[in-house]
């Protein structure tokens, strides 16, 4: 049998023996691991943010990057004085409000309806979602064809039910409506599925308790479902707004901002100014304005994400 004894005294050892010399490799390791990611973020994200702000104070052009002239806030005041730019901002705003508002409302109703177990609902969910994963190029061209005023399917259907044809993309009044329609058609599936995911994460026992209390369906909806979904709704609001600010592909392919500037919006404006008209100053100033808008939304999102804890 082993006899327990105190550990033998070891010469020259004391508490200092355990004081580990700083292992630099171990200390540095996490930084080394995140370094490549941070390098890429710095090069292609944070530096460009600073750079575009810097560029917005100069008159410059992509044709000759060596010659840049300091104009201070000149680019911004020039933009503000430009009627076209105000129209671009207005267009962006209208497009965003309608796309986001209608898109979220529609998808919320779809989600309420389609959030069921049976297989049909799953199939319809997948169908509704499918445009979201298809390239906007394809969608833009497909809808141009559907919206063709003379031979397009949409006008054919209108005619079939005895309605007059619509001018779609060729008229200043209807072009914006057409773009919004395409955008909602593409985005509604994503929103619906996010809503459904949100609904499924609401604990079932809350609904069971409401049932036991004989809560009518509309009260269950307004008192339980909607409040519990408010973080999801807010997330979608931010994501959709940010992506509506970004709208470009459909404009570039379907309308080129026309007719008569009626569908010209921010990113397209920046592209035109910077890449087509070589007016770097206006393009970078408009970029800064867009950046401020997106930045504000991001900040708002983070602020409200902290509050989201209340519901969990």
């Amino acid at each position: 049998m082993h006899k327990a004894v105190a550990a033998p005294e070891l010469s020259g050892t004391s508490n200092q023996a355990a004081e580990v010399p700083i292992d630099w490799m171990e200390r540095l390791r996490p930084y080394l691991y995140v370094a490549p990611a941070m390098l890429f973020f710095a090069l292609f994200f944070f530096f460009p943010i600073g750079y575009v702000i810097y560029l917005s104070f100069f008159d410059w052009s992509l044709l000759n990057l060596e010659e840049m002239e300091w104009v201070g806030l000149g680019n911004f005041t020039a933009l503000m004085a430009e009627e076209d730019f105000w129209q671009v901002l207005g267009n962006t705003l209208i497009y965003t409000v309608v796309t986001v508002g209608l898109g979220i409302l529609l998808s919320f109703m779809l989600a309420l309806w389609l959030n069921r177990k049976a297989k049909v609902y799953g199939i319809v969910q997948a169908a509704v979602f499918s445009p979201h994963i298809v390239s906007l190029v394809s969608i833009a061209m497909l809808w141009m064809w559907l919206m063709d005023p003379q031979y397009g399917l949409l006008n054919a259907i209108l005619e079939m039910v005895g309605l007059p044809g619509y001018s779609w993309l060729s008229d200043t009044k209807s072009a914006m409506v057409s773009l919004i329609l395409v955008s909602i058609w593409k985005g509604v599936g994503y929103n619906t599925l996010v809503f459904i995911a949100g609904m499924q994460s609401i604990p079932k026992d809350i609904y069971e308790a409401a049932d036991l209390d004989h809560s009518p369906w509309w009260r269950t909806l307004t008192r339980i479902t909607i409040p519990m979904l408010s973080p999801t709704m807010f997330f979608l609001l931010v994501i959709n707004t940010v992506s509506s600010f970004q709208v470009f592909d459909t404009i570039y392919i379907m309308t080129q901002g026309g007719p008569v500037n009626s569908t010209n919006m921010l990113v397209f404006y920046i592209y035109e100014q910077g890449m087509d008209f070589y007016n770097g100053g206006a393009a970078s100033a408009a970029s800064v304005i867009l950046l401020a808008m997106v930045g504000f939304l991001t900040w708002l999102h983070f602020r409200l994400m902290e509050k989201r804890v209340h519901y969990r």
Partner: protein
Amino acid sequence: MARVVLNQVTKSFANQQVVKGINLLIPDGSFTVLVGPSGCGKSTTLRMIAGLESATGGEILIGDQTVNQLPPGKRDVAMVFQNYALYPTMNVYDNIAYGLRNRGTSKKECQVLVEEIAEIVGLTQYLKRKPSQLSGGQRQRVALARAMVKKPKVFLMDEPLSNLDAKLRNQMRVELTSLHKQLGSTFIYVTHDQVEAMTMGDQIVVMSEGNIMQVAAPLELYQEPDNLFVAQFIGSPAMNIVKDEENSAVVWGFRPEKAQLLAESAAPASSIEQRVLRGTVISREILGAESLCHVETEKGRIVVKVDTEISIQMGTHVQVIVDAANIYEFDRATGKRIGKGVGRVGQHALAGGMV
């Protein structure tokens, strides 16, 4: 194979010291069990030996080498975890071979070693399976095999049986003990279960609040506890503790199985020195062949273990009689045992013979 020495080892998390300067010699080839209630520092101690936690102070030696600076992989130890911690994406073979490959063992040698170990633990036909396709007991064997294949100097086990059902646990207990005999390496085993500790260990280290309370062989721990904590922790049900009337600095105790229950009127028949407590039976738990009688005495509630065949009515007035030889005395302030070994040694044979 090697002994393990802890010299003034401390461990602090944030500002809390969880291991408070312990000294311990774990002899080469021993099966040492660290036991104590949760939060006593036993797992932390084991993890410091493994190198998964660094010691805040003091020195840890494996063999003759100070290992404080060595990473876990270089300490030549192997560990079996409570949740097995198998690599879920690898099959059994790869789980066992992973450590060998990391040490640069050749493919051929790997295969020989893995198959040999698989044979010993009875996993040969499961080598191609993923851990998720195995039963709890089989996973336990994989964890063991993974430790054994490295032929480490020291095996560390952190409550390895606590996730098994009772029957399998008993079986694995026996298997682990015989495995220890077979391998002859040093085992260090952590558990909170005193039965596991007593049945498996040849040296038991009782810990409490970051300190070592006693280091002893199982029998000695039961018969000669150093202090109140060990006396109450080892043995089930726990030792009865009673305040001494004459000397307020002392408390004394006796084990429930070392007391007799007599009717109130009966005269103690023995000539041996005895202590008597009077009280009333308030409840009775039947464990099987034996029962526990809870007796309310003038000095507090006492538990006595009696033969189940003896019929006892609730509310009966009784005498609890304890031979002086079975009495332990402790310093009330420090909990230290008073007069350890005095007058008890000769009683062992007798005590064993009495019911």
